[in-house]
């Protein structure tokens, strides 16, 4: 078995609705999966070879004066600098996750367009804050 399962995991809505039923042999897909796999692995290897992964400061060294959090929680770190911990550390992240979980439900309530807009705003805010934290003081 090859590695890439996801390539045809979810066909877009148009395909589904058009009800096209032409079939092709599985090998057509497998070929594409292999190509994708090797492109991806190549990119990963290039990244690994070219950017050294730091190991930060030894716990035995003198205390560091600024400690950057890992980027995945950068946005939360940024929020923690502005607002109380219960709000930035719990309420805002959990609220965002709750919105994500209930997206199908929102889809029925307010329509697909609004779901996309809500989702986009939410994502952009979090991604933006992450960049803000990583690249500014």
């Amino acid at each position, binding site marked *: *078995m090859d*590695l*890439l*399962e*996801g*390539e*045809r*995991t*979810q*066909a*877009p*809505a148009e*395909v589904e609705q058009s009800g*096209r039923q*032409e*079939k*092709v*042999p*599985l090998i*057509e*897909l497998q070929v594409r*999966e292999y190509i*994708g*796999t090797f492109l*991806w*692995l190549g990119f*990963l290897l290039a*990244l*690994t070879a070219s950017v*050294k*992964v730091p*190991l*930060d*400061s*030894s*716990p035995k*060294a003198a205390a560091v004066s600024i*400690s950057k*959090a*890992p*980027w*995945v*929680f950068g946005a939360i*770190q940024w929020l*923690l600098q502005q607002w109380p*911990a*219960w709000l930035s550390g*719990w309420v805002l992240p959990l609220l965002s*996750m709750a919105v*994500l*979980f209930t*997206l*199908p439900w929102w*889809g*029925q309530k307010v329509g*697909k367009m609004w*779901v*996309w807009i809500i*989702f986009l705003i939410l*994502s952009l805010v979090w991604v933006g804050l992450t960049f803000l934290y990583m690249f500014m003081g």
Partner: protein
Amino acid sequence: MGKQGNNSFMGHIRPRQIRTGALRLRATFCLGGFSFLAFIVLTITGVLLLFYYQPGDRAFASLSELNSVLPYGGFVRSLHFWAGQMMVISVFMHMVRVVWSRAYRPLRELNWITGVVLFGLTVILDYSGYLLRGGQESGAAATVGQALFTSLPGGQALATVFFGQPSPLNGSTLNMFVWHAFILAGAVGFLQLFHFWRIRRGGGVRPL
């Protein structure tokens, strides 16, 4: 799982014939698949790291030895690191793609929920992996997480279960190690299989 009947797992995942529409790159940009690929790379390199990594007080020392002395040690560690970052990004992009193509709608709700759980777990995995370094920065990151739990009513117990002893001096990595390498990684692996199985079973793209 041996038989190739229509109900067997493999039969769902690898049908012999597929629809042409499913081939188009624009349909998925391969993002789900790339996430899975990253997970496989992470599992392989993670197991390799297990051979030398020593959780606890020796975490940082064992990693710097692995990084600089062991043949290909630095390479394995970098691969694990970068595959981890790529996995977070590609899971996120996969989610964006799913919302864009409106694939979260009924019939696939369960898979949407599984996907959101997977996204959350991947982010937590990336964070917990970073804590395993046992350096000052990762110790600080652990302390902040620990303090957030402690601030909850009754959160002291949770903080202890996740992070170990309170106020570790930068480097009590044992608990996080168990979570990262076994519990969370196992849960993510299992949920992914479930996710792929649901795509065939309950998804809108009928078993072909």
